[in-house]
């Protein structure tokens, strides 16, 4: 597993220029794209999970959303991507409202949500999973984009004909991120990308996310239990507790705030 992850990381590093070009094809490179969340409330049934959440994610930055289990981090992402309906408040990307839209329409508007755990479709092959990411791209760009992805993530190219269910956890994580990137999103929502991965691979994944921001100006919202490694790459940190924003500031500041760390972040 570690070897595979390493190979992926190396492959990606070795093709920095190519990745840059690929991402540059999409709208992600545009300056000024941002995610704006204001006074958001959401929940399930009688349970209110999010209350009065306001977060602004600047274009080309990584925003780490942190907090304990049950703080509402995953619900936040699911509400942005439309899987959970917002009860109040506003979500905008580039000034366009996402509230009350179906998940597929939000995806088409440029929000790629990489869900927690294994978002791969195990019955499909690796290549088919990747092709699903391409559905929103113009037909003429697809061949080049998928070739780029294979160059960047070598391990996927080696296994393109295998059922995605045969991949290891790390490989699956790489696959879902690669697939999300292929759709050339404006905003990437990542839910616990490090969950269940070996520390070495976690580092590689984090590294990959940071490079994507740097290379292509992607806006990333990163939900992580592993607050320490998230804050290492994030530009900004938001701490949720019981569905409310209890802190929001520069990532380095947050990491330095010992009280906050001890209270909410556990490191």
């Amino acid at each position, binding site marked *: 597993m570690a070897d595979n992850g390493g190979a992926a990381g190396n492959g990606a590093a070795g093709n920095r220029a190519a990745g840059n070009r690929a991402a540059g094809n999409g709208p992600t490179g545009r300056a000024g794209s941002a995610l704006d969340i204001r006074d958001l409330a959401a929940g399930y049934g009688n349970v209110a999970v999010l209350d009065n959440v306001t977060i602004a994610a600047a274009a080309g930055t990584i925003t780490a959303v942190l907090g304990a289990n049950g703080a509402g981090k995953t619900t936040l992402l699911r509400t942005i*991507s439309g*899987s959970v309906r917002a009860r109040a408040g506003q979500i905008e990307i580039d000034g366009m409202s996402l509230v009350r839209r*179906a*998940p*597929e329409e939000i*995806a*088409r508007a440029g929000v*790629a*949500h990489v*869900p927690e755990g294994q*978002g*791969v*479709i*195990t*019955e*499909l092959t690796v290549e*088919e999973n990747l*092709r*699903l*990411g391409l*559905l*929103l791209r113009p037909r003429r760009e697809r061949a080049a984009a998928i070739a780029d992805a294979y160059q960047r993530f070598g391990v996927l190219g080696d296994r393109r004909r295998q*059922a995605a*269910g*045969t991949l290891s956890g790390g490989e699956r994580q790489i696959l879902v991120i690669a*697939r999300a990137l292929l*759709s050339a999103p404006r905003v990437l929502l990542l839910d616990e990308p490090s969950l269940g991965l070996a520390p070495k691979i976690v580092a590689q994944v984090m590294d990959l996310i940071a490079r994507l921001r740097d290379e292509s100006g992607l806006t990333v919202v990163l939900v992580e239990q592993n607050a320490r490694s998230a804050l290492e790459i994030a530009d900004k940190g938001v701490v949720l507790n019981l569905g409310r924003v209890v802190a929001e500031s520069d990532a380095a500041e947050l990491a330095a705030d010992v009280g906050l760390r001890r209270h909410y972040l556990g490191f």
Partner: protein
Amino acid sequence: MQEFIEFTLGGLASGIIYSAIALSLVLIWRGTRVLNYAQGGMAMFTTYVALTVINDTGGNYWLGFLAALAAGFALGAVLERGVVRPTVGKPPLNSVIVTIGILIFIEGLAGIIFYNGQSASFPPAYSIVSLKVGSIALGVSWNDVFTAAAVLAAAVLLAALFRYTTVGLRLRATAFNASVSRLLGVRVGRVLTLGWALAGLIGALAGVLVTPTTFLNPNSMDAIFVLGFTAAVIGGLDSPVGAIVGGLVLGVVLSYVGGYLSADLIELAGLAALVLVLMFRPSGLFAPTAVRRV
């Protein structure tokens, strides 16, 4: 030997129809986890449409054939959108009852609007006279050959659609994991409608192909549906290949039982075959076992 050839080929000729019905059931099951009990009724209805077109165009079989396929496609889409979609998120049994309701409604409607519900014959595409090798009659006709070819061609085209086109990729992705597909921008609603439409089309094909041998009336597809359903269960509801194989196996088994034992035993043989398969493979012969987590 002559009898054996006749029973075998005759069984395959019947079986391929069960395969077609089974295939249409599998298409819907994989896409929406709904068992469409109205599939036979829909096929009966579209066959009436074909008959009306044939009679109105002075006997043009192929126009009727195409009309049935088009009607099946449209009917599948309309039913999914109109009455099946609202059962999503409700208890699964509700969708079962809704499809049974569709079946009962369609049968009543056909009795009201088509030929006063009277039995009618439906023409075959080609001659039904047995083919011969030398002096041995094979027990299958050009029409049986056409029937088998049409079902297999439809199956191959479907497989190609699923395997090689982006529409097919959307269909499969939705069938396997609708919520992930949604996050990737797949308009799942439209894809499900398309799945029902394709199933309606395959069902319509089965109706047009089988009705020359059963005659057409509002209940004429009931028994065929039961056997098609049985074939799908035997093959495994998630497996299109299983549907085809299940239909052929069932057709041949029933033909042997009817031929060598007694016609009275055909239904019991169907039950026995089903129970036997399910005893050893509770999810059918071709149940996917590999990648599913439990």
